[in-house]
């Protein structure tokens, strides 16, 4: 979380944005205007901040990546810091979505009809992945660069994706996922697409900051952002050998120990057992309201899901980073990160026969213990 947006203080920017010639300054101003508008759920003002910039001649790709994507990033940050509700985040995302749809319409009309289209690309989110905005932005960037793009949206079941590929045979599939717990689903999608003989370009936070999970799961390419993905596609991603069907275990031999299978199949029971043991251990929990209890159960369920994903990728860091991030989120809401400790200890009891799971949980616990009480999200405490 490095590229924080300019402090959103000046609300007077939108009017001046159109007057100035488009440049870095006007992007900054539009960003500020857009941020204020989506925060207020004011779609009209949000749209004006973007379209005024385009009317002034700004490059559409710059607007997509330098304004909308940046503001969306801020939305996520503000949520993490506890300053924006989930519903507000949804509202902001929906406004961005509609502005992009309107932009797409406008750019399609501006495009010369006789332009030879670049290679066809299918853009899809992994099954269970609801954050479709990054994929949508990529789809628009690719369209702007002349690709024929089929955007299949959020949460694409892999059989739908494969049926679509048989129908259209694109040059590549760009697969987006933001949550690491979707990696097993991403893996299934990657191998299924490659079996049809079509290469997969993976992108999104789920694949790790350096794309390590994209490599692990055998993706043909990985890109850190929409521009990188467009560049990679421009260079061309070689086709995998068609018909070379890989089984999960071929890529991930460590799955033979069945720990991933057991943990993911019994996740509900694990959460139940953990909740019961937590109540034994922490008398305060008995006074929880049902809603509080459910939040706690959700937190435990998330830990189990991330543990499963860590077991899948055989990377304890996946769980540790999640715990550290959850610690940030909790502390931003005035809850100390160490509340996660007892749950981890109980899970260690529950999973005492699973050596990899035990090791991952122990590493996660140690990382939590090693945290100071510092809030790691800027601005937390003063405004939260």
């Amino acid at each position, binding site marked *: 979380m490095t590229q924080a947006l300019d402090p959103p203080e000046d609300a007077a920017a939108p009017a001046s944005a159109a007057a100035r010639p488009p440049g870095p300054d006007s992007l900054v101003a539009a960003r500020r205007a857009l941020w204020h508008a989506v925060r207020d*759920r*004011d*779609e*009209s003002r949000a*749209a*004006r901040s973007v*379209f005024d910039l385009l009317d002034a001649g700004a490059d559409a790709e710059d607007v997509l990546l330098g304004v909308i994507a940046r503001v969306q990033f801020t939305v996520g940050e503000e949520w993490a810091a506890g300053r924006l*509700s989930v*519903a*507000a985040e*949804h*509202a902001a*995302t*929906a*406004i961005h*979505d*509609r*502005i992009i*749809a*309107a932009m797409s*319409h*406008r750019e399609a*009309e501006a495009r010369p009809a006789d332009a030879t289209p670049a290679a066809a690309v299918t853009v899809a989110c992994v*099954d*269970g992945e*609801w954050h479709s905005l990054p994929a949508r932005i990529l789809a628009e960037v690719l369209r702007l660069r002349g690709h024929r793009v089929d955007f299949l949206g959020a*949460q694409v*079941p*892999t*059989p*739908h994706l494969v*049926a679509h*590929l*048989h*129908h*259209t*045979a694109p040059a590549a599939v760009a697969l987006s996922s933001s949550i690491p717990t979707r990696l097993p689903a991403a893996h299934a999608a990657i191998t299924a697409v490659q*079996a*049809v*003989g*079509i290469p997969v370009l993976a992108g999104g936070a789920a694949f790790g900051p350096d794309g390590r999970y994209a490599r692990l799961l055998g993706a043909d390419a990985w890109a850190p952002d929409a521009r990188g993905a467009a560049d990679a596609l421009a260079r061309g991603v070689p086709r995998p*050998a*068609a*018909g*070379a*069907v890989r089984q999960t275990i071929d890529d991930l031999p460590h799955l033979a120990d069945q720990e991933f299978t057991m943990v993911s199949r019994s*996740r*509900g*029971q694990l*959460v*139940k057992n953990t*909740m019961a043991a937590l109540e034994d251990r922490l008398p305060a929990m008995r006074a929880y309201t049902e809603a509080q209890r*459910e939040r706690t*159960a*959700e937190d*435990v*369920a998330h830990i189990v899901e991330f543990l499963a994903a860590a077991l899948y990728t055989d990377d304890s860091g996946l769980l540790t980073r999640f715990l550290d991030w959850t610690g940030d989120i909790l502390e931003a809401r005035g809850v100390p990160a160490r509340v996660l400790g007892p749950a981890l200890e109980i899970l260690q009891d529950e999973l005492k026969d699973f050596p990899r799971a035990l090791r991952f949980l122990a590493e996660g616990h140690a990382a939590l213990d090693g945290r100071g009480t510092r809030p790691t999200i800027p601005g937390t405490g003063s405004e939260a």
Partner: protein
Amino acid sequence: MTTFEGASRQPRGLVRHVGASWMQAPYPALVADSSGGVVEANAAATHLFPGAVSGAWLDHVVPGWLADAHRRAGEEGQPPRPVRGRHEDLTLEAHPTVGTDGDIVWWLVDDTDRLLAETALRSERERTAFLADASSRLLASLNVPRCMEVAVQLAASHLADAALLVMPAAGRRHPIAASVGGAPAEHSSARIDPSAVTGLSEALQGFPPVPSRWIDPATLPDWAVPEGFDGPAGSVVVTPLPGHGIPAGALILLRRGDHAAFDASEEVFARVFAARAGAALSAARMYAEQAGITATLMVELLPPKLHPVRGVEYAGGYRASRDTERIGGDFYDVHPGAGSDQETLAVLGDVCGKGLDAAVLTGKIRTTLQALLPLAEDHEKLLRLLNGTLLTGRHTRYATLVLASVRREGRVTRLRLTSAGHPRPLIVRRSGEVEEADTAGTLIGALPDVHARTAEVLLQPGEACLLYTDGITEAKGGPLGDVRFGTRRLREAVADCAGMPAEAVVERVQMLAAEWVGGRPHDDMAVLAISVPHSTHLTAVDGRTPGRYTT
């Protein structure tokens, strides 16, 4: 060591030991002494090496490799090993047998046929491996153009210098894919005369291929020689791609003049490959046809794209119970009234069952409802008529649904909501309160008579109404895995949705429900949100107006 019976002569050393019948042995055999001189050679050996008579030097009468082997056999302390080499157009294997006095008998075995057989076997294995690999590549994609590409690329890299795949004409044009040396295939669609290539029109009609030697490469038309094929074609094979009863196309293989012409076994092999390619191509074509038919039939059954109508936003979301299906028992529609002051009728419903059977029934209900639109002023009457159409003596597959007649009147938007046995719509107030519309009624299509009570609701700008099917509230999952999502969670989920665009409300509900069920099985889930924007919206989103946004 074999001991020959009936030794009549007593030659020296080894010869004595092995007996004299070797002289009549069918294998060529010769004896040489330690100094490299021929001691004796049998008739077969002299036939092979005419100079090999007693007293001649090996070096002068046998190939160098054999003379060398003999020299080495004398030098090394170890027993000599068999050697192999060429003599004229034969491949010989020479097996030494050492005698006590240093003489060596060289038994010569003609190995030529075995080598040929081994080469043939190896190429047969290679061909089998190639076919296995080709099959899996060909069958990987059910896309016809992609399948053509794979076929010509494989053919041009393994069977010939260039390959063309000519499909039966679609209209007047033949789709053609071509590859040179296995390079990425080029597609074209050309008006060609197949009879210009000997055997092509026959192949496209499914007749057996004509022998390659009948085809004169010099007569090939330009289109049959792909771009990038350098030099004139030396030999050509045209072979049909057998399909499902009708030919899937024809394969043309070209070799350059400076390469060997296709021999008979290669022609046979090309046919075997063409059979696989034809099977794959036919499967792809059949899939494309079926998928096309299904898509056409499904258009009517798929949930429609919704657009804002007269100042009110509508958005719908649907997820079928089985991931491989896009349709099921839930449905929704929005029918704008004919005149600008007329109500819009939105409907969301759920029929018993899942999958295609259920979808067909939804299709019937949607069509009937459309026909009954003029009667939408009286919801109960409309439901009675719908019930009458759907009632059959055969079964009791019923539907439940909600009708919403919507009209924006300046700032307020008036809704008439009627549930026919369906979960009551939720109203999201700006205050964050969530109300259930006070409507109730009988399900449709199972009972002889139905009743319904309509609720009137006013929405202010920023407020919304949510119709949903019980697939959402009945969804089992959550952190514990077996808890129903329930109405309480749904109400909480929409409580802070005031002021959101309708799509955002739908997406939020869908997302929460999907996260709740996780990967578990679930019923069909449908949501329809009706929201009143403050005053503005992006009209471009409705996909019909070219404008950017209106104020």
